[in-house]
């Protein structure tokens, strides 16, 4: 069972992403912000779904920090956020994000993206 790390300061979003992914056969691990996520990334994680606006360390900072570690250069990361500014999307893309989803997300599309990126 593939393990997905869901990073969001909103328990509501974590619950909904977790429910959609677990029903699709994924195992879900949760983190409440970027700092928490960095501490939870390990070799068992197949992919990250990450909010952008979070306390302590936001999603883009987390992504950029993650890519400085050679072990996680190719780890798929998709941003899931209320933000939709092209500048932010471009920054995430440059940092190596594999996708961008604007909240509220549609479960079936999110699951399809996760399945595709973890295949």
């Amino acid at each position, binding site marked *: 069972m593939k393990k997905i790390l869901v990073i*969001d300061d*909103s*328990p*509501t*979003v974590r*619950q*909904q992403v977790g*429910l*959609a992914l677990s*029903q699709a056969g994924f195992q879900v691990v949760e983190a409440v912000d970027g700092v928490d996520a960095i501490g939870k990334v390990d070799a068992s994680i197949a992919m990250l779904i990450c909010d*952008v*606006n*979070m*306390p*302590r360390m*936001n*999603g*883009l900072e987390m992504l950029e920090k993650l890519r400085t570690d050679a072990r996680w250069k190719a780890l798929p990361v*998709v941003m899931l956020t*209320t*933000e*939709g*500014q092209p*500048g*932010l*999307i471009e920054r995430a*893309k440059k940092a190596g*994000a*594999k*996708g*961008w*989803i*604007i*909240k*509220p*997300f*549609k*479960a*079936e*599309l*999110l699951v*399809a*993206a996760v399945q*595709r*990126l973890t295949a």
Partner: protein
Amino acid sequence: MAALARTMLDRLRKTRDRLVARVRQVNQTTETDVLAAGRHVQRVVEVAHRHIARLREVLAGPVGNEDSDLARAIRSQAEHVRQHTAGVGQAVAEHTAQVGAVANQVRLITVAAREIERLNAAARVLSINARIEASRSSGSSVFSTIASEMQGLSKAIASANKTVYDLANAMEKTVPTLVRQNQHLARVVDAFSHEARERIDAVDRRVAELRTAVGTTLAESDNALAEVVSESHSALSKLQFQDVCAQSLLQIDGWVADLSHQIAADLGVAASIPPAVHATVTNDDVEVNRSEAGQVMLF
């Protein structure tokens, strides 16, 4: 002016505190309710999953496939009845052949009895001849004895032959009855075999129909469950309004903080302005096109 600016900044800070406190209060309430709603939906899906699993177990177990218990039991019983009726049919056929053989033997007995009767007639002639010779030879004791013995033998043969005749006659009357009864039995057995085969075929057809119906029902149940899951995800997606609203409301605090910095700078007042309570990557007031919400952009 500086005092006025500090008062204004202080009021702005208090307003921010109240705003953030109220937003957090509302956010906490909606978050609790949203999480509860999410758990309810999750429970609905779990109950539906359990129900379908139970339905599948109940229906698929006895009749769902070729190797299910009921299908195997019906096939076994059908084979048993087929073998049994075939065995009875074979026994009746053998019995018919034996009855035919008995009828033939009775006819042969009758022929043999006629032959015995013919020989007995010859014996009677010999007896009469011996008596005639005895009278010609003035009562020769030899011919008298022969005539007497031949007459006794003839009577004994006639008596025995009558018994054989009577038995043959009785059997000739009984055997056709036996043949008729045997033919009737054969017809009954044949009709039973035919009916049993038809009924077994009917049961087979019913089992096949039931299996098809079970398959269809399970497929419909799976589709219904998929629909339940899809609808629940749609419902849950709507509940994300809480996070979207919370972030939008807390962004107001960031704008007021920016405004406070601006006022302090414009009026040249040194002030301690707390940072925005909710970190945002950008504080631009950019309206996100919500029709794009949920769309996945993969790079």
